[in-house]
């Protein structure tokens, strides 16, 4: 089952990569006419300003590391396309979480994203009766649409950039999830996000409301017999830009507690360094609270994003 998801992830990534040269060729052929050198706009225009595409969220979308933002990921402008791939490692006291994925930003309007998450129970798997290094794998498919507001150019009003999105998550351990009391192994989240850049103050503030049934981001399934309904959860971020390359901030994300495992809210303190428009790294201290009865699940969040 996990292997199937992994194969799907790989094929999706490869297909995405294959599409790139094809699009580039299509671009060049439009250039081959006329004597007057008409300026041709490249499809992958890398035209946004540094850092304004955000980083890669653990779910694969463009945003903060943990919290959802209204940005369309990558550096494509409203005339271009941007593609970002990420690899994120979260090392907690009792568990590891890996996330690898891709986000494609289309014309700064639509973002399609995919992430494959692997939650490794490490030695804790033995104590939980699952076995050492027992893993939960989850696929997250996302789509986000920017509604109104422009992060960078709306500096003379308080209008934030806003977006709505949907995420489909599918977990590969339905039997185990049923045993711990989750109702479903897959689920759909809906969210609305607003992100404001106050450029003159080098400050970014973002908030989102997510309607979800996910237990621990879906790693422990969705809903329970006692709590099967959608709940609105809050996600907030504040970031301060010390330069166009370097941002430091904090994020907060509330989560439902459907399973009665005292699931807690998550937060992180992060530093993001944008080397250029093709590479950025994020380092954070992250605290996800209690996970599967294991308390104080805090640790390191390290992420690398590469893009065109």
């Amino acid at each position, binding site marked *: 089952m996990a292997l199937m998801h992994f194969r799907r992830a790989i094929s999706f990534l490869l297909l995405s990569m294959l599409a790139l040269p094809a699009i580039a060729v299509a671009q060049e052929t439009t250039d081959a006419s006329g004597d007057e050198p008409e300026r041709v706009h490249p499809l992958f225009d890398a035209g946004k300003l540094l850092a304004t595409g955000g980083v890669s969220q653990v779910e694969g979308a463009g945003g903060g590391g943990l919290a959802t933002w209204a940005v369309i990921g990558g550096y494509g402008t409203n005339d271009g396309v941007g593609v970002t791939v990420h690899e994120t490692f979260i090392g907690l006291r009792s568990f590891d979480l890996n996330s690898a994925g891709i986000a494609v930003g289309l014309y700064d309007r639509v973002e399609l994203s995919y992430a494959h998450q692997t939650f490794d129970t490490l030695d804790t798997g033995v104590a939980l009766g699952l076995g050492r290094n027992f893993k939960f794998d989850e696929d997250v498919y996302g789509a986000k649409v920017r509604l109104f507001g422009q992060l*960078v150019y709306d500096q003379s009003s308080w209008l934030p950039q806003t977006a709505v999105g949907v995420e489909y998550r599918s977990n590969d351990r339905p039997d185990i999830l049923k045993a711990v009391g989750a109702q479903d192994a897959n689920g759909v989240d809906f969210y609305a996000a607003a992100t404001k850049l106050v*450029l003159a103050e080098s400050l970014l503030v973002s908030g989102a409301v997510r309607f979800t049934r996910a237990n621990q981001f879906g790693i422990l399934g969705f809903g329970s017999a006692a709590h099967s309904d959608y709940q609105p959860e809050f996600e907030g971020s504040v970031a301060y830009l010390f330069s166009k390359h370097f941002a430091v901030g904090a994020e907060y994300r509330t989560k439902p507690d459907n399973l009665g495992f005292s699931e807690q809210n998550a937060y992180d303190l992060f530093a993001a360094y944008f080397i250029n428009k093709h590479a950025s790294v994020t380092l954070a201290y992250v605290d996800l609270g209690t996970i599967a009865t294991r308390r104080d699940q805090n640790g390191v969040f390290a992420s690398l994003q590469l893009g065109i």
Partner: protein
Amino acid sequence: MYRPLRQTAPVLATFAFLLFGVPVSADTTLYDDLGGKDGVTAITAVMIDNALADDRIKATFDDINIPRLKGLLYQQFCTLTGGPCQYKRRSMQETHAGLNLHESDFNALVEDLEAAMDARDIPWSTQVKLLAILAPMERDVVKQ
């Protein structure tokens, strides 16, 4: 469902620091912070020199009187930053009409401006003040 305040307090404190702990600059104009007449003259001139060497946008400056453009830009930046000037010229829409500029062209010029300010050692906290004033012009410049 939610953590008790005891647990959220450090997070809220961090948010509050980031929101309100940002130092406020002294009571000088942005024009002064950018180096006054010499500084703003150099910044606008170097920005245009950078743009003329920028493969992404240099073609958009064909048939343009560069010394005149530098002079007008100085006047405009001087006015916008609280300097002793009064820029009264045609609107940004008019001056960019027919150029078919893209958002990426606007941002390329922004990057050329940032490089010009970096060359003058203008601190980022001052740079963003100017960028914030110029940013809304994207609507008047692009696709006119």
